[in-house]
């Protein structure tokens, strides 16, 4: 017997899920997180869950884990002191950055420039030079380098990054520098740019590699702790971590290249959504993961989440692949305000956070939040979380009344206005991943999750025309499903930078074969036999002279002409025109994927279509400009096939689903609620 254990660490709760690989049976649990050392809750929670389910430590084969350890290290500035070694003449590479001042004209007046991720006083120059063609222009001055390393020793750096000009073409100098650093500063981890990001653009390569160094000690410590605790528990389970791009990587790889973990958290949600979408049978889905302070959205097409070649955390944007998740500062805790000068209604990005939280939480908050508006409108019943927590409806009304007074409108209109604005903000993010990429949201279903998602999902679908709304079972632990159901992933790429007119199928094919050999071997070393691997080849293509590439899938051995034709079509779809210039193949990339878990969702008992058995009570709520009579249902008592007519509220432990007037929610055989217009 073999089990997969998926664990997702959130700010408040750690979600755990065990899947029986043979039967698909799942057991799940939720335990409080332990922010001082998240690995404690992870392993003790896992033990507890397995013991309760009668699963022995020896039976757990894989331990799959999404973590925000790297993300939080960046957000909270708890990063390593990184020493940076650059080519002579480039000492201020991180200070000058790309010279960009964000914002409009005169925004420089109010822009606080972030400090370089590797301090300038710990940045040293190596006398050396590689040309753009890879030739050595000036040899590395090793004696001088050994001398300069004294500066890094004195600055007490905890990790070192090497990023030299044109190392993406020839990494010889970087490797030699790394070897010398290892001799001179033993025990300090060294990352080189040619390993982390072998791509043109020195600033992005340097920054990405520095980011890797910056989170490396934290991630290594964390992974080390986890590994030790797992051993102590006595399980042979292989530890794998969820990468920002939704693939899994081994514990060892995670310690070497943790920059790939920066968006591990949100990736879990999207990966979970893919799994639910598969079971429910909807290949095209927009996800809406709405929490307290922010909302993450993503697009899934044909069961594949969209990838982007960047990862952003706070101020930091690095070149590491991640699922194309857009985050908007809109959540349940977002504060509504009416600025005096303009008299406009604004919602967020300021948030009441966990403390003091929305006024309705009764923890001293007085600012009107989105949650308060939901309470005022009756969308959030007074008792949350299975009755352990009561909402203060009066406090919510007092808070929202401030907005009503400022705008000179009624309380209910103000509350509805707050909801409309926050929905619009989320719509803005959803447009970025859909319309702006050439997708019509009406071709997609919408899957809301996270604490607040199911409350807003129906309204969002009305805005976007995305039907049905799929409210998954346990919307709060979707990430753990994602962790447990994705696959191992290894990728590698080369800069190619050649016009299609200057190359041929054989030349491209040879490079592809070379990369395939590399990634296949790597994945084999991680225990996936070559026969079980799935390979994907991608060519980054653009019209010669453009700055941005489109990643194009290319079947192995297929002619380039086919890819070129698809590129032209894709360019036209996105940008409305084609150009009469040759296409350039910029990068060639191969992705090797391990086998997927064969995890089926569990079916729930079938009912007769009538949800009355799950009815909790009648309840009044405000919708579409008037007070309406609705019903509250208990999700745990709904049966497959039940049809819930709006206006209705479906409650469960960690979430509340709102079904609008004129809409119905149908419970499918797995317990998902599918909301559609009547």
């Amino acid at each position: 017997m073999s089990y997969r254990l998926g664990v997702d660490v959130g700010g408040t709760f750690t979600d755990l899920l065990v899947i029986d690989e043979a039967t698909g049976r799942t057991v799940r649990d939720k335990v409080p997180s332990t922010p001082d050392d998240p690995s404690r809750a992870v392993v003790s929670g896992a033990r507890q869950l397995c013991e309760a389910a009668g699963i022995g430590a020896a039976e757990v084969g894989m331990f799959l884990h999404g973590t925000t350890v790297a993300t939080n290290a960046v957000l909270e500035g708890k990063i390593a002191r990184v020493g940076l070694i650059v080519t002579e003449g480039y000492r201020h590479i991180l200070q000058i950055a790309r010279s960009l001042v964000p914002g409009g004209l005169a925004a420089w007046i109010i822009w606080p420039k972030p400090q370089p991720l590797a301090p300038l006083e710990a940045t040293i120059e190596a006398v050396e030079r590689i040309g753009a063609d890879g030739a050595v222009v000036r040899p590395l001055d090793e004696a001088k380098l050994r001398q300069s390393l004294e500066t890094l020793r004195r600055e007490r750096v905890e990790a070192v990054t090497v990023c030299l000009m044109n190392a993406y073409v020839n990494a010889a100098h970087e490797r030699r520098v790394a070897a010398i650093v290892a001799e001179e500063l033993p025990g300090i981890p060294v990352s080189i740019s040619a390993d982390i990001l072998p791509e043109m653009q020195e600033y992005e390569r340097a920054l990405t590699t520095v980011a890797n160094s910056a989170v490396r000690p934290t991630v290594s410590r964390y992974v080390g702790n986890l590994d030790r605790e797992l051993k102590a528990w006595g399980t042979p389970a292989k530890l794998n971590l969820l990468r920002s791009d939704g693939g899994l990587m081994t514990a060892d790889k995670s310690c070497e290249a943790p920059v790939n973990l920066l968006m591990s958290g949100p990736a879990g949600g999207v990966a979970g959504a893919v799994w639910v979408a598969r079971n429910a049978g909807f290949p095209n889905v927009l996800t809406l993961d709405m929490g307290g302070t922010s909302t993450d959205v993503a697009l899934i097409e044909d069961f594949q989440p969209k990838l982007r070649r960047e990862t952003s955390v706070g101020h930091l944007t690095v070149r590491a692949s991640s699922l194309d998740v857009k985050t908007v500062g809109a959540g349940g805790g977002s504060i509504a305000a009416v600025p005096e000068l303009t008299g406009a209604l604004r919602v967020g990005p300021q948030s009441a956070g966990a403390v003091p939280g929305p006024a309705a939480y009764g923890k001293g908050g007085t600012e009107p939040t989105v949650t308060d508006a939901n309470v005022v409108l009756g969308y959030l019943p007074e008792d949350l979380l299975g009755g352990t927590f009561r909402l203060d409806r009066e406090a919510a009304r007092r808070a929202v009344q401030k907005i009503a007074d400022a705008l000179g409108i009624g309380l209910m209109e103000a509350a509805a206005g707050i909801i409309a604005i926050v929905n619009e903000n989320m719509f803005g993010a959803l447009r970025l991943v859909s319309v702006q990429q050439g997708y019509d949201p009406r071709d997609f279903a919408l899957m809301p999750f996270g604490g607040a998602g199911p409350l807003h999902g129906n309204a969002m679908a009305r805005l976007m025309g995305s039907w049905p709304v799929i409210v998954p079972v346990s919307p709060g632990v979707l990430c753990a499903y994602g962790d447990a159901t994705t696959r191992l992933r290894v990728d590698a790429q080369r800069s190619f930078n050649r016009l299609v007119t200057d190359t041929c199928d054989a030349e491209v094919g040879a490079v592809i074969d070379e990369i395939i050999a590399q990634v296949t071997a790597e994945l084999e070393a991680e225990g996936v036999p070559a026969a079980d691997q799935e390979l994907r080849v991608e060519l980054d293509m653009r019209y010669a002279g453009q700055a941005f590439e489109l990643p194009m899938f290319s079947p192995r051995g297929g002619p380039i002409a086919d890819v070129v034709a698809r590129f032209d079509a894709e360019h036209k779809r996105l940008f409305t025109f084609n150009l009469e210039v040759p296409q350039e193949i910029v990068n060639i990339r191969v992705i090797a994927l391990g086998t997927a878990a064969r995890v089926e969702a569990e079916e729930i008992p079938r009912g007769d279509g009538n949800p009355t058995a799950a009815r909790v009570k009648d309840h009044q709520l405000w919708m579409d400009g008037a007070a309406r009579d609705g019903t509250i249902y208990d999700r745990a008592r709904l049966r497959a096939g039940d049809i819930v007519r709006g206006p209705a509220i479906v409650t469960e432990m960690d979430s509340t689903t709102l079904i609008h007037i004129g809409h119905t929610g149908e419970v499918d055989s797995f317990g998902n609620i599918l909301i559609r217009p009547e």
Partner: protein
Amino acid sequence: MPARIIETNPRPFAEVAVDTVTLDIIENALRNARIEMDATLVRTAMSPGIREQGDAFPLIADAEGRMIVGQFGSFIDGFLKGWDGEIEDGDMIFLSDPYSCEGAISHANDWLVLLPVYRDGRLLAWTAMFGHQSDIGGKVAGSMPIDAASIFEEGVRIPPVKIWRRGAYNADLVKLVMHQTRKPDWCTADLNALIASCRVAARRIHEMCDRFGEDVYVSATRALLERNYRAMKALIAQAISEEPISFEDYVCDDGVGFGPYRIRCTMWREGEKVVLDFDGTDPQSAASINFYLNENMFKMFFGIYMIMVFDPQILFNDGFYPLIDVRIPEGSLLKPRFPAALSGRTHALGRIFDILGGLLGQKTPEFLNAAGFSSSPHLMYSGTDSSGRWFQLFQIGFGGIPGRPLGDGPDGHSLWPGFTNVPNEFLERYFPLRIERYEAAPDSGGAGLHRGGNGIHMTYRFLESGTVSIHDDRWFVPPWGVNGGEPGARARKVLERADGTTEVVPNKIDNLKVERGDLLHFITWGGGGWGDPLQRAPELVALEVRQGLVSVEGARRYGVVLTGDGAVDEGETQALRDRIRAQRGNQLPVFNFGPGIEVLRARALEETGLPAPRQPVWRTRNLPLAAE
């Protein structure tokens, strides 16, 4: 005769009440549409100038051409006034001649595309975008000849023409235009990118109308303009005095021996209106540094500065235009007479912002920023490589951002919105160049409690012989410091020949021949300092010495003395600070312009390696004649 708008549906849009929420939704959606225009452009354009550096500006306007979202204010009004023709559904206008649109675009390198957005036979909106073309023909590569005596030497001049007429594309027109440029491949792609951006925005406007109805959309745009009018009215009454105040600054030279050119602006309030009068500005130049300043564009600059300096929460649009009155003397540097050359207008354009900052902050020094909005330094490098292929580079450089109330000015950043540098590895891969050095120039930022940003020291090694053009300024008159801060260092260009000789080259020069192996040190200006440098923490100064941003000698300008190992020598520092205080007194000037024009002239050769420019003079006539 102004443009005639043809509408087949005579029914006007109804004025309807728009609730606050809908208004905010439309405002957000418009803002998103604008962002989408930028994204479409940079993803599809081809010239590094637009693609990497973002030298392009989008606009969404109402049917009358008033900007609802955008950056530089509306250029549509100027076009509509100047164009004798009809506008119909399915048309798209293309133009580049500044004299045909009252300077709404200010040199012929900027190609402007205007799309009237029709719905059911009625003109609903305009979307527009202009972008800087790397080459439009003319006498030098890059098409910005410094010594051009008239606009006829500056490449192709496109009057307003219909690139699309009632849905039909005019391919011959585009062929004719592309025939004039040295880089038809870039220009074709960039023009397509401009068109695609306008179409994307038009699509979004239609979607808003599908969702809310045309009447609501139109009423909402009016309400947004009105909202801005109200906010700015309150701000003007608060911040602008009825007593006139003046400020002046200079463009260093015109590249043909004259300078510095003074730009002077006087500001006062009359009732609810602000008057901005450029009386006292120097005459137009016989060369190309003239800046045909569109009044509306200047209103927008003024508005944005007001908002950024005093209340950054306000969304800006054209709503406040009636509150501003701009007066520019004919025949001056800012309103040159046809056919004056205009291509080198970037320096005066940049200087306008320093003048605005100086004007607005004068009465409220706590809001005052130092100077440094110099210009955008340009480098052009072109030639035929050893394999016979033509190469041509147009690159914009950056300098030091001024010291600000908020803190230090960033080193080597852009004051223009959205501009980024071109990665050096990209330059090296696609051009015969090696960038040997790309660093902040230490000590170039003016000393201050908040240091001015350092300029950039960029060293190009040319790997093929070719021709270079340089356009830079702030080499003669330094960027001023404020509230006790010192001026920033001036720009400088040094050519180090492969044979070992070194020469200082002018900051405005065309046709500079370079050979394989030559090095060009392209050093930009630093921003002015903000506040008393003696109040800067000595430990911070010491840290910046370790960071290579300030030198040991430069630290003394802050009254900071370091020990041999780089630590602060507290005793010596105290002593030096006391000495400086005793010498200079306690009353520090609000503005520190440096030693003044006459002293700068006298010392020019010694300090800059270049002769001082001569005083420009007003001439009554004898401009080259041409029929308009």
